[in-house]
């Protein structure tokens, strides 16, 4: 009843090409941004900022990065956590070693460093694909984490590679309180998400999708495979790198290389599977889902054990978590391979007709 585009005519090319062609979508996204930027900082508590909102935004960004590579360009990567690590350590080094380096500049440089490393590890994708490539990205995962642990220079000679980040200051303003950090992260994530949304609608994005669907065919119609694939690796690693820098600076404050383990890579992969492979919105939905699920289980399982009179100890809860994660991944891949984003789309289609059947 409310969600209907009847009567909205496109009279210019600009109107035809805007990101949200339907007015209700535009209003919705504006409302969402207002809530995120204004209402949430006013009402949310410190626990919400530190434990849910900030990590949610950061993981969304990382998932977005992986989604660009896996969802749009079709190159499965199991090394996204390593690129986050590159971003985190690069940002730290730029901050510590360059006097008076603005923090935003070091975030960008961290992203660029990660992009460079991403291109390096993306090179094999020109020769190999599919599973071989997925296994090859594991090389990045193990090699980078090892390097960060073993080369003392990279962590400024701290023991076993642990880094503690200095405080954040943008244009002379300190960003210490949780809501301030939240706003900083939110601004960066919103900007990068907008850029990603536009990128996947552009020539670049279409080339990625052509390569994903069949790279030989894409080559035949004149897409340069090398540029396209390496660009996907670079952009994806840039996003992961910035996410890693934010992860270190705005979320944890102190990180170690082992924190960026294969498990984190899998977690990010799960986010895009659950959220929707090849969808910007899906990255956000997936990150929220994967992040909230353990919190939900932590509350729900003890309650369940109380009701059923079953003794669940901490280990059992973590095993059940693993099982639920695994089962959910299989469930989504079987029932809805396009993830939550697809459900959202179906919901919107239904809403267009509601309350009429046709």
């Amino acid at each position: 009843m409310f969600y209907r585009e009847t009567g909205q005519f496109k009279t210019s090319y600009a109107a035809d090409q805007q990101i949200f062609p339907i007015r209700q979508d535009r209003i919705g996204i504006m409302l969402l941004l207002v809530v995120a930027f204004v209402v949430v900082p006013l009402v949310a508590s410190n626990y919400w900022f530190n434990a849910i909102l900030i990590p949610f935004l950061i993981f969304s960004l990382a998932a977005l990065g992986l989604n660009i590579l896996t969802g749009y360009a079709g190159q499965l990567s199991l090394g996204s956590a390593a690129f986050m690590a590159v971003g985190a350590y690069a940002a730290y080094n730029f901050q510590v070693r360059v006097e008076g380096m603005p923090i935003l500049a070091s975030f960008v440089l961290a992203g660029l460093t990660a992009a460079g490393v991403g291109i390096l590890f993306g090179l094999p994708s020109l020769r190999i694909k599919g599973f071989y490539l997925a296994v090859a990205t594991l090389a990045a995962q193990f090699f980078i984490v090892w390097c960060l642990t073993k080369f003392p220079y990279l962590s400024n000679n701290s023991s076993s590679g642990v880094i503690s980040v200095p405080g954040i200051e943008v244009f002379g303003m300190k960003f210490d309180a949780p809501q301030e950090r939240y706003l900083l992260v939110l601004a960066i994530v919103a900007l990068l998400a907008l850029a990603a949304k536009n990128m996947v609608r552009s020539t670049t994005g279409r080339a990625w999708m052509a390569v994903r669907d069949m790279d030989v065919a894409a080559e035949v119609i004149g897409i340069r495979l090398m540029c396209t694939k390496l660009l996907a690796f670079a952009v994806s690693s840039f996003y992961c790198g910035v996410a890693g820098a934010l992860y270190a600076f705005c979320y944890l404050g102190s990180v170690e290389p082992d924190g960026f383990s294969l498990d984190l890579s899998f977690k990010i992969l799960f986010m895009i599977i659950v959220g929707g492979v090849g969808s910007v919105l899906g990255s956000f939905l997936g990150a929220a889902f994967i992040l909230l699920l353990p919190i939900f289980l932590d509350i729900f399982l003890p309650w369940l054990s109380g009701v059923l009179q079953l003794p669940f100890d901490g280990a059992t809860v973590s095993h059940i978590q693993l099982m639920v994660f695994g089962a959910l991944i299989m469930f989504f891949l079987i029932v809805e391979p396009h993830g939550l984003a697809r459900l959202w789309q179906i919901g919107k289609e239904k809403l267009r007709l509601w309350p009429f059947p046709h």
Partner: protein
Amino acid sequence: MQFFFEVLIGGLLSGIMYSLVALGFVLIYKASGVFNFAQGAMVYFAALSLVGCLEKGAPLWLAFILAFVIMTLLGIATEKFVLRKMVNQSPIALFMATIGLAFFIEGLAPMLWGNQVWPLDIGLVDEPIGWILDRYNIVVSSFDLTAAGLAMALVAGLALFFQYTRVGRALRAVADDHQAALSIGIPLQHIWALVWAVAGFVALVAGMLWGSRNGVQYALTFTALKALPVLILGGFTSVPGAIVGGLIIGASEKLAEIYIPPVLTDIFGGNFGGIENWFPYVLALLFLLVRPEGLFGERHIDRV
């Protein structure tokens, strides 16, 4: 030089153990085109089931059979509830589903059998073989040698099974072409369940050998990560590739672990141990740049 040979032989023997895990991957990949990331979790599950049955008081042979039955059930369940529902999805989607399966099994196994580290004694002792030590002054573990012998016997047995039995022929037919196999009346779903059972058997042997050496624990799942470079080196579709790849990876990673860190320490200072975690991957990666389908893999021709 003696030391070099000692490291080399140790590496080759542990490489056989990697091959054993890689073999499970190859079997399933050949027969169903699924790249089964859960193989490592299956090794863990198999070893835990074996130990669990032993704990309940079963003798070793009975525990082995029981564990095999459990692995078969797991394989059939996987086929029925996951793979059958995912027919016609892309191989990458199937691969991601097996990552989910790996997590599921990693949660399920300790729920069923407990998550402590179990010792597993299958009557093999881990000590140097006397006469080699006397004659050449090289330490060769009798345990490793027995394990390698077992692995070789397993591979030979599988090769015979594939070559000379009716079921083996059906398996090879399915591996060649699903549709053609179906059209001549080979029951695809039985064959797949069977392949998963055989992979479960391989996982059980691997889990038994690895477990009796390091104890049965969660770390067994990491054997899959050791087997992956073996796979890409040898090619996903080749049983001999898994063996040769395992030998190359095993030998080279042990040699690298011994000989590379001192060089790095000379240049940069500091401690550079733990190279064996990534060295096989980088080696396999470099190798792929030269031969993208692995040593014995089938050359893949793309058609538009």
